[in-house]
């Protein structure tokens, strides 16, 4: 029985290893299939040149966990549309770091898990950072937040929620967060806490441009009161960062629900696919 691609795909998913599946959906060898990992590839979509182009594109898309259509010439040429290959990324779950083991953190950790994140909770205080308080977290780390974050893996899909609202912790960890490529950095606190924190960050040499990266006060303005409601506001803001949507009411805007809002030209998936192909092309050059 020939199940080599399926068997390897299944195994990669079971071990949470990054893997991309490429399928030729338009072109001469309809149904041609390749499995691509950062290290190796197997299968074919027709010929060696096309395979090589698909491997490059797939690795670029896999890095960002992106899925979409890519187009090539019959021998893998760019800017030609004879062949369409659907590339599907199966990247390990993105990470969510939650700093500050307070009740709000417990709710944020739960909703992070619900959204599919690998959730890591970190606090310097061992009495608060416990399994009892964070049953849903994937990891609970007792460490100084900034020191921990400096060595922790972070990529563009990573979400960092700083909920300590204690300047002794949050200023250093936000500085450390700004040194990463994290896709979302949020910091909890009242207006007063936010103003104090902003002043301290500026004193520490953080630039206005860097400050713009921090969502502070954290979350969308939905009038949340409880930890759970606040977690919903934070989760919703995190989604808007990924999609580029504004977070307003659907009832108050027109146009397709899943499509980007009117001012955006192409859908995130289309942009992703284009970016994946562009990145691969850049690497080839």
């Amino acid at each position, binding site marked *: 029985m020939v*199940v080599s691609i399926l068997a390897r795909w299944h195994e990669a998913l079971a071990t949470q290893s990054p893997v991309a599946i490429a*399928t030729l959906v338009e072109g001469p060898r309809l149904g041609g299939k390749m499995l691509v990992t950062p290290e190796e590839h197997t299968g074919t979509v027709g010929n060696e040149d096309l395979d090589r182009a698909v491997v490059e594109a797939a690795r670029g898309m896999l890095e960002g966990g992106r899925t979409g259509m890519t187009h090539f010439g019959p021998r893998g040429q760019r800017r030609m549309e004879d062949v369409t290959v*659907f590339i599907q990324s199966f990247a390990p779950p993105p990470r969510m770091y939650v700093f500050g083991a307070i009740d709000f953190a417990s709710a944020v950790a739960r909703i992070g898990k619900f959204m599919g994140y690998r959730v890591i909770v970190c606090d310097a205080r061992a009495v608060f950072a416990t399994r009892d308080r964070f049953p849903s977290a994937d990891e609970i780390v007792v460490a100084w937040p900034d020191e921990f974050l400096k060595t922790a893996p972070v990529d563009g899909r990573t979400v960092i929620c700083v909920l300590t609202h204690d300047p002794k912790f949050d200023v250093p960890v936000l500085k450390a967060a700004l040194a990463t490529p994290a896709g979302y950095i949020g910091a909890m606190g009242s207006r007063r806490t936010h103003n104090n924190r902003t002043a301290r960050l500026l004193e520490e040499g953080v630039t206005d441009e860097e400050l713009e990266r921090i969502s502070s006060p954290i979350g969308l303005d939905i009038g949340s009161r409880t930890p759970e409601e606040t977690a919903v506001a934070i989760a919703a803001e995190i989604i808007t960062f990924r999609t580029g949507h504004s977070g307003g009411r659907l009832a108050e805007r027109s146009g397709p629900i*899943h499509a980007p809002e009117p001012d955006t030209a192409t*859908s995130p998936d289309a942009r992703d696919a284009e970016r994946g192909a562009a990145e691969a092309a850049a690497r080839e050059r």
Partner: protein
Amino acid sequence: MNPVVEKVAEWRYAEKKVALATVVKVERSGPLGPGTSMAVSEDGQVAGSVSGGCVEPAVYEEAMDAIESGKPRLLTYGISDDEAFGVGLTCGGIIHIFVERVDW
């Protein structure tokens, strides 16, 4: 673990023929994004879905046909009041679904 891939593997290890239907493109509004998939086994079991339920019956038939013939196909489903499409999506979107027999 992706539950659809899990089922496909399970069925294939049991030496059953299987077809996989995958959403490859969504235009305008569509309920589920690219990469969402549904698998069908030769004995009629189904795992996963490709829409909010609008096109699953039609995709099931196509999947059964692909299991039989081995022929992969790219399908397009669109707006229900458009006569060009046999099966419609009430949401007004257009989805492209690739159906293939799993023999790789």
